[in-house]
C-alpha cells in the first residue's frame, strides 16, 4: 500500500509533501535564490530572462510572472519559498496570502481583524459542496 495522505480532503489546502516537493524542486530553488539582493535586482529587471536561466518550465514561468500563487502551489511551489517573492515585490505576507483567496486585500484584512476565517465548514472538502 502507498503512503497514507490523510490531508488530501482539507479544502483549499495543499500539503508540501514529497510529491509536491519533487514537482516544485527547481521552482522552489528559484524562489530561494531571491534571498540575494543581486538576484532580486536581476529578476526584477528582466523576469523572463532570469527564470529561463534557471531552467524551470514555461507553465511555472508564467505562473510566477502572473503572481498566480494558487497556480504556483499546484506546480509544486511552497509558501515558505515563494514568500521570498512577496518580499521581493515589497508586499506583505498578508497581501500575498490574500491573493490566493479570491478576496481583495482590504476585505481579507478586515476578515483577519474580525478573527480570521472560521474553521467551520472548512475542515473537509465534502463540507463545501
Amino acid at each position, binding site marked *: 500500500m502507498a503512503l497514507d495522505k*490523510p*490531508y488530501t480532503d*482539507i*479544502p*483549499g*489546502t*495543499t*500539503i*508540501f*509533501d*514529497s510529491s509536491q*516537493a519533487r514537482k516544485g*524542486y527547481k521552482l*522552489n*530553488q528559484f*524562489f*530561494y535564490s*531571491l*534571498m*540575494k*539582493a543581486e538576484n*532580486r535586482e536581476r529578476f526584477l529587471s528582466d523576469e523572463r530572462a532570469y527564470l529561463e536561466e534557471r531552467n524551470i518550465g514555461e507553465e511555472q514561468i508564467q505562473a510566477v510572472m502572473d503572481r498566480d*500563487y*494558487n497556480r504556483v*502551489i499546484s506546480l509544486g511551489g*511552497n*509558501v*515558505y*519559498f515563494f*514568500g*521570498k*517573492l*512577496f*518580499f*521581493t515585490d*515589497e508586499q*506583505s*505576507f*498578508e497581501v*500575498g*496570502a*490574500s491573493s*490566493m*483567496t*479570491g478576496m481583495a486585500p482590504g476585505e*481579507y484584512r478586515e*476578515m*483577519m*481583524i474580525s*478573527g*480570521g*476565517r*472560521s*474553521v467551520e465548514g*472548512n*475542515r*473537509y472538502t465534502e463540507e463545501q459542496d
Partner: protein
Amino acid sequence: MARITAGVATSHVPAIGAAVDLGKTKEDYWAPLFKGYEFSKQWIAKENPDVVILVYNDHATAFDMKVIPTFAVGCGESFGIADEGWGARPVPEVIGHPDLAWHISQSVIQEDFDLTIINEMEVDHGLSVPLTLMFDQPDAWPCRVIPLAVNVVLYPPPSGMRCYRLGQAIRRAVDTFDEDLDVQIWGTGGMSHQLQGPRAGLINKDFDADFLERIVNDPEALAAMPHIEYMRNAGAEGIELVMWHIMRGALNEKVKELHRFYHVPASNTAVGHLVLENTE
C-alpha cells in the same frame, strides 16, 4: 550545574519583526499585541538567563531543498541574521553557546535522537522575532542562544510526541552540564494559521485555547495529537505548534504558569504566548 529555569512559547510572525524595526508598535493594529509581551519583558530582565535554547523552524532560509534536516542544532560560535528577501533585519547577530550546544547534541544522539549538527548558518524571523518580542531592541542580545531548527516545511515533520521526548532528552543533557548556567527553553511558531491557498487566513480560537491550556497542564496527552489534526483544525501552517512540545518536554511535569496571552491577528496568524516557570 546547569538547569532549565523556565519555558517560553510564542508565535514568530515576520510582520511582528517589521513592526518593531519600523517603529509601528504604538499603532492601533499592533499596540494590543505588544501589550501582551510587557509582563514577559520585565520578567526576563529580572530572570536574566545565561542561555536560551531557541526551538524554531527555518522558513526555507538556511535550508533550501538540497538539505532538509529533521532536527538541527546550532553548535557554532555565532549566527548571522538572514536576508529573507527584504534585506536582513536590523538586529544584533546571535551569539551561540557551543559548549552547551555540543554537550546537548552529543548527549541526545546517544539517546537515539538522530540530530544534524550545524556549525554555520544564518537565522531567520523564526528565531529573531521571538528575541525581539522578549528583549526589544538592545545593541546586543543579553544572553547566548542555541538555535534548534525543526523541519516543519516539508511533510512529514517529526511527531508531537517525538518532539516532547526530545525535550525530555534535552532536559537530561542540560542537567548534566558542569557549568553553572540558567537556561531557558523557548518553543516558537504557530498558533493557528494558514498562509497558502484559498483557505488562507484560517484561525481557530477554540483549538488555540485548548492547546494553550493543555500544553501547560496535560502536556504528554497533548503531544500525542497526530499531524492531521493540526493541519485540518489549525491551518496548514498550524503544524508549527509541534515545536512547542520540545519546550514543554524540557520542563517539569508540573509547571507554574506566570503569563498567558492570546491575540488575533498578526498578519495572517493567531499569536499565542506563555511564560512557564520550572517549579521545584
